[in-house]
């Protein structure tokens, strides 16, 4: 056994590449989510409930529902993504694995990006698949499916990234839910506005490209800046 012990430090063992580390992070978070399904299912159930209750509350008239559908879909998507945010770093901070990520020798900014990717795969992606289905109950024509999926997918990327900053900042706050919403909601307004606009245009059957470009721009801006901010916030929280 002591032979392997010396070899570990003498050979200058093969370091993991940043890419391998990011892959591990995503794989770990997905495996954990699959073991603890409640956390991923809860926001989706919330989304399904909100969107299916609207026809009962307003009126079953499809033309009226179709008018409010973009707003309903997007507000529900925004709120359900907020629900999922609280868990983003909390468990890792609790059991000390977040600390080990900071100390891993890998760039924390890069790891934060990986963590957000995992979060989006577990929340944003299922949400964008569910959105057109929920749309059916709101009288949305099947032709609008493509537009809705793309706009929710792009928008949720931006939401996950904005949320990562908020979640990292509120890491040390007990019962951080309210503060987290207060921090992230104002920043998510542009996503809500352009996302709903793209969905509205898709439902009407006109070109929804312009608001989609803006959503894409926000997602790109988020990918470049949010991990930096989240990494800085995590460092502060761990002090």
């Amino acid at each position, binding site marked *: *056994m002591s032979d392997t012990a010396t070899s570990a430090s003498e050979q200058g063992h*093969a370091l*993991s590449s940043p890419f391998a580390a990011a892959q*591990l992070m995503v794989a770990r978070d997905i495996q954990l989510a699959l*073991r603890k399904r409640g956390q991923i299912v809860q926001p989706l159930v919330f989304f399904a409930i909100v969107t299916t209750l609207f026809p009962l509350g307003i009126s079953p008239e499809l033309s009226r529902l179709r008018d409010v559908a973009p707003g309903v879909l997007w507000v529900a998507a925004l709120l359900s993504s907020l629900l999922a945010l609280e868990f983003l770093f909390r468990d890792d901070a609790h*059991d000390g694995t977040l600390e080990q*990520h900071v*100390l*891993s020798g890998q760039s924390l900014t890069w790891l934060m990006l990986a963590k957000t990717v995992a979060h989006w795969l577990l929340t944003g992606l299922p949400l964008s698949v569910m959105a057109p289905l929920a749309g059916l109950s709101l009288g949305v024509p099947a032709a609008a499916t493509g537009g809705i999926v793309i706009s929710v997918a792009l928008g949720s990327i931006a939401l996950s990234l904005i949320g990562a900053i908020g979640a990292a900042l509120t890491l040390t706050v007990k019962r951080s839910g309210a503060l987290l919403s207060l921090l992230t909601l104002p920043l998510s307004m542009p996503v809500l506005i352009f996302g709903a606009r793209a969905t509205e245009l898709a439902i009407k059957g006109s070109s929804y490209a312009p608001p989609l470009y803006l959503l894409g721009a926000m997602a790109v801006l988020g990918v470049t800046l949010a991990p930096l901010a989240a990494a800085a916030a995590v460092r502060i929280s761990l002090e």
Partner: protein
Amino acid sequence: MSEPRLEAQNLHLWRGERHVLRGLAFTLGAGECLQITGSNGSGKTSLLRTLCGLMWPEEGRVLWSDADIRRDLPGFQAHLAYIGHEPPLKADLSPRENLRYWVEMRRRLSRQETGEALERVGAAQWSDRPVRTLSAGQKRRVALAGLFLMGAPLWLLDEPTTNLDAEGQRLVGAMIHEQLARGGIVVAAVHHELVLPGGALRRLELAGE
């Protein structure tokens, strides 16, 4: 890499209203172990977290091989292994999976290496059970396997023997001894004197309030 050397210069640290570290300084070379003792709240954990760059001191600096650690923090952190009060393990994963996700963030690991490390710490029998079903001492042993696998020249250990039985405490002593023998550096905060089978043990007592 040049000879590892850890140096603390004039460290001052405040936690809220309390001035916990007051001008602390020491130098540790290859093969040296620093044992930090002190009453609860005397700043043992804060000192360790400062040494690994998780906390910034108000004054003073930490040097690794004569370079300020703040200049290249991830580069420095790649050389250290820190284990806090709580073993950094995911309750829903097995020890084997935990070690994979924890250690492989840093370096590539073969299945065999993991198996050997788990066997060394006496965790082979329960290495595929979820960590939530393990006792505190068993978790501590898994953390020791992680420490072993990281192969870092600098070990920063916070209460490494907590929850361990007599045999486990001897294991910690033996692991530290081996680490020192291969030219590593160990800084350990403890309540009970470390049992080392020999080697240079230096002591530092932090004054409480």
